């Protein structure tokens, strides 16, 4: 039985600059991977490649045996994306935003008329309830707080019933309290539903607390790949040149 998500020798250059160099890792169902690294280490490029938004120059990324760069149309629903800026449709209700996650399953006319069948509606309500926003279904997305908007975005990804959720710095625009709640939620979804989660982060202590594994990137190369409990001071120094001092470690 091979792993759910496999990155094999992924490389990306932009002209002479090497953004990603020989990045490889594997991820099992029910596992949450934190992606760490200083700015410019290649996290954003890796996110785009993992999400299938961009085909890397070299190497291959597979989801359950399928090349993610070749996923298109409805197949893209297998990967749920969560963005730093939430990316909800501001004037739509929380529920309608979650229902967007069903567009890869439902027929196109339902999307145009925003008329979903009973099963999709029930699933969307469930997803909202799971992120703790059952009471906000009819509220317009742009009236929710940042933390609530990110929860709606996670519910949208959940509604896709994906195999994998990729979150690109999902807590970078949130206050620490909301941020911790979001990561707690991703972790519990990952373990309860048997999804794989990849989450890029800026804070090493979050990675240690919420992730199962930590992948550290530096100048496009993997310099750290180990279980989250074993991630400590030494690895932080390797990643960030010792410029981060955190009392927790």
């Amino acid at each position, binding site marked *: 039985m091979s792993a759910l998500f496999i990155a094999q020798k992924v490389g990306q250059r932009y002209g002479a600059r090497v953004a990603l160099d020989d990045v490889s890792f594997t991820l099992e169902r029910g596992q949450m991977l934190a992606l760490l690294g200083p700015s410019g280490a290649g996290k954003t490029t890796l996110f785009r490649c993992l999400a299938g938004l961009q085909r890397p120059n070299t190497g291959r990324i597979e989801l359950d045996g399928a090349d993610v760069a070749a996923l298109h149309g409805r197949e893209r629903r297998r990967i749920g994306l969560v963005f730093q800026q939430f990316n909800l*449709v501001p004037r739509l209700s929380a529920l309608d935003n979650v229902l*967007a996650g069903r*567009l890869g399953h439902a027929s196109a006319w339902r999307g145009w008329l925003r008329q979903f069948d009973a099963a999709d509606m029930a699933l969307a309500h469930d997803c909202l309830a799971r992120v703790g926003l059952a009471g906000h279904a009819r509220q317009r997305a742009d009236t929710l707080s940042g933390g609530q908007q990110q929860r709606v975005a996670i519910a949208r990804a959940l509604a896709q019933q994906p195999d994998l959720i990729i979150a690109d710095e999902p807590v970078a625009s949130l206050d620490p309290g909301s941020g911790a709640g979001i990561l707690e939620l991703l972790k519990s979804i990952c373990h309860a539903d048997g999804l794989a989660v990849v989450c890029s982060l800026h804070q090493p202590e979050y990675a240690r607390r919420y992730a199962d594994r930590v992948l550290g990137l530096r100048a496009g190369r993997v310099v750290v790949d180990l279980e989250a409990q074993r991630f400590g001071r030494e690895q932080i120094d390797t990643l960030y040149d010792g410029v981060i001092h955190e009392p927790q470690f």
Partner: protein
Amino acid sequence: MRSWKGWVGAALALAFYVVCWRVAQVDLARLAEGLPKLGHWIASAWPPALHELPLFGERIAETVAMAAIGTTAAMLLALPMAVLASRNITPWPRLYFPARWLLNALRGIDSFIFALLFVAAVGLGPFAGVIGIALHTWGSAAKLLADHIENMPMGPLDAVRSTGAGRATAIGYAVLPEILPVLLSSGLYWWEFNVRASTVLGVVGAGGIGLELKNSMDLLDFPRLLTIIVLILIVVTALDQASSWLRKRLV
């Protein structure tokens, strides 16, 4: 040096206005001669002629209806055209510039000119006016919407696309809800604008109250003219109030 340039600039500006004054044949003496005539007409316009009110009502209704149909048609056509003329979401980037040029052309030609053409093509009557209004408003409305779309953040559209939705479905889901209020509120504005504009369409035979306005002027029937002008003012003001009230609720 600086003041020397200033003097030359001032002299050029002065020369420009002198030439314009000549070309435009401004003649204040003629205005002074004409004013008493105007005063006499205004005096003779009272009391307004009310016996033709039912006819005027019909003509005003024609004007409002022309504007309503023309504006609505323009709004419906503007929606797909705006998608085509938005650099960031157009499905056919090759058609971006042709679409923009077409919109600029439609916008640059007044509905009055279009009405002139279509009176010749489809005959006298309000239908020619409807087409004139629709074409000009189409260009203006689609350009406004396209500019709005080009300034929208694309994150929500990308996110909806990534859920496995098709391109058209994603645009309908993520872009349409954001531009619909703009479409409706600008549509109300255009309707009101077109009611005002289409009063002159009657002059070229394209239907509406403008026809009666021109007849009265030709016959120097000032009580009739006064009635028509007051009616136009009442309708335009009422529409202006109603549409601004509605627009406030929409946004």
